[in-house]
């Protein structure tokens, strides 16, 4: 049924429909709406779950780990400083192979305090062993959250559902909210592969010597490697049930494109419009939306970019001393292919600055006019005066 929801509540609806059993959370803007709604559902009985008001994000993830190892479907949500604070436990959740799902609202990290969107928070958790899925709009947020539970439980890996602050979390859109029966068919009751059980006692998470540690990590990597195919398999079932097919990577007009713009998150919607406009003017441009960032869908990315003459990656994030993070990953995916296209890394919209159609036009024009990238990364829309003032 179509309803109007803000992005945050699209996530809450999915969590309710997934019949999550334990939720632990700690408030941080702009994530709070997700768990406020869930707290209501728990209070009024629409969701039969325990809601734990823990005293920090570190504890939110620790409690989710305890719950998941106890054998229930567990969920939490956070953002920015909260995610950074959880970092240690992100490794613990993945290393324990627990199918926890977390919504993470992209927000800039301080200082200075900035509550607006920026992907550096989630991307700096890329090596923790979590699957990361980036959402474009409200429907995508709901669908991706449902997919996240299925995928997590299929692979015994935790999944992070990532959405832009405000542009998505606080934006109201029509969202098709599926009925409970159909969701139950996608997500049958959680049947843990292992759990804490007095009848079958195990010592979980104990000391592991060098002779055994590496194989455990390799197995985690094998699960990661199965994620893209697992996603596709689940997406097929999803389409049968709901008539929509979630995609880990979506290529728009890439087949004959000279220049392909690569995006993630809400910028993708803006970019769709830009690509349509440019195409109307006869420009050979395409769009590659990356929904799944971990595992990085390198094969799909290579395939879709194989005919492009140039690739322009738009990053609303930055790795200091390196560059835009999606651009690094795209470069790494392409680098072993003979004669691959040059990859332009554009950094834009940090700390919630708008990325408008004009911004994307500028990126396209620069890419078209330049044969090879002039720099490791190109910052778009900087105010030269401010840069000068703060320069050391």
């Amino acid at each position, binding site marked *: 049924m179509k309803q109007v929801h803000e992005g945050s509540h699209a996530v809450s609806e999915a969590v309710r429909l997934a019949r999550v059993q334990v939720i632990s959370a700690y408030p941080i803007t702009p994530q709070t709406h997700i768990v406020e709604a869930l707290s209501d559902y728990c209070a009024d009985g629409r969701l039969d779950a325990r809601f734990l008001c823990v005293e920090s994000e570190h504890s939110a993830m620790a409690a989710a780990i*305890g719950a998941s190892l106890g054998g229930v479907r567990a969920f939490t949500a956070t953002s920015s400083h909260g995610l950074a604070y959880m970092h240690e436990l992100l490794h613990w959740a993945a290393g324990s192979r627990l199918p926890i799902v977390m919504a993470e609202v992209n927000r800039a990290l301080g200082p200075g305090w900035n509550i607006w969107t920026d992907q550096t928070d989630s991307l700096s958790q890329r090596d923790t062993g979590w699957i990361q899925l980036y959402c474009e709009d409200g429907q995508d947020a709901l669908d991706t959250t449902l997919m996240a539970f299925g995928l997590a439980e299929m692979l015994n890996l935790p999944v992070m559902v990532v959405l832009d602050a405000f542009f998505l979390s606080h934006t109201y859109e029509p969202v098709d909210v599926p009925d409970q029966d159909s969701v139950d068919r996608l997500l049958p009751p959680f049947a843990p592969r292992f759990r804490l059980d007095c009848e079958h006692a195990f*010592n979980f998470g104990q000391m592991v010597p060098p002779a055994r540690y590496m194989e455990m990590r390799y197995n985690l990597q094998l699960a990661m490697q199965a994620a893209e195919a697992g996603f596709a398999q689940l997406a097929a079932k999803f389409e049968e049930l709901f008539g929509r097919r979630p995609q880990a990577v979506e290529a728009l007009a890439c087949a004959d494109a000279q220049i392909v713009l690569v995006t993630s998150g809400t910028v993708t919607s803006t970019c769709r419009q830009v690509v349509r406009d440019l195409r109307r003017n006869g420009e050979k441009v395409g769009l590659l939306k990356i929904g799944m960032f971990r595992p990085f869908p390198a094969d799909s990315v290579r395939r879709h970019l194989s005919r492009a003459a140039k690739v322009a990656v738009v990053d609303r994030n930055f790795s200091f001393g390196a560059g835009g993070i999606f651009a690094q990953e795209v470069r790494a995916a392409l680098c072993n292919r003979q004669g691959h296209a040059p990859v332009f890394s554009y950094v834009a919209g940090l700390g919630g600055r708008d990325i408008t159609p004009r911004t994307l036009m500028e990126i396209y024009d620069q890419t078209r006019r330049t044969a090879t990238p002039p720099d490791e990364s190109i910052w778009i829309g900087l105010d030269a005066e401010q840069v000068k003032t703060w320069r050391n």
Partner: protein
Amino acid sequence: MAQLTLDKESPMLSGHLGCPGCGAAIAMKFALQGLGEKTMVVLPASCWGVISGPYPQSSLKIPIMNMAFATAGAAASGLRAALEMTGRGDTTVLSWAGDGGTFDIGLQSLSGAVERNEDCIFVCYDNEAYMNTGVQRSSATPFGMRTTTTPGGRWKRTRKKNIVEILAAHRIPYAATASIGFAADMIAKFKKAAALKGGSRFIHVFASCPTGWRIPSEASVKVARLAVESNVFPLYEVEDGVRYTINHHGRRKVAEYLEGQGRFRHLSAQDIATIQAQVDAQWAFLRRRAQEET
């Protein structure tokens, strides 16, 4: 003297990785004698993370969840919630942390858990330092002790934090101290804690560490007894955060307890007198709380 018989079939198995005379290992044995096999243990980083054995072994017959250092309170809470959601609410969740994992890095998580009055038994086995990492001071390290981070003449000049008062301030149903030197008392307290199911229970267990305290391994229990007999570590209970009961009245001098422990060997007669005065004052304070005549 009363004879105490331990169950032959203990949830703690005969092999473990503790040092000879490890008080923390003895503590677990007594605790589980009180709690039985329908128990799950949450184990943050500590010596017990080693004592419980490396993969794929275990020194306990019951399920163990090893966890990151700061997380005992929160992890136990999550597990508790899962047990309730899966119809296993009658299982005891035992959070088993060292003094570092309780007094220091785990204090916030523990405070959060007991403020929510989580239905778990939270234990601090206290060996008065970070032993697993090689005897560094914690806020449970007593005045006068040498550790690797309070070495030589820089032995610890500040007092041990009073963790039971902190927990009692949360007004939890039950808080108590126990000692591996008083087995019957300790086992009875774990039984009592189990019977008080429904809310947060906290037990502060004095667990000597021959390695870190520089005492002979066979002196572990004797030293723990002397700590109680000298009122350095009194045995008492606090119900609902306010009703104090003292379980044992010590009559010995602090010097008898300190003597023979390498960790205190450097102390002068004056230092020992200072400690005696601290202990006397704290003992009087405790007796007033328990409304005993002083």
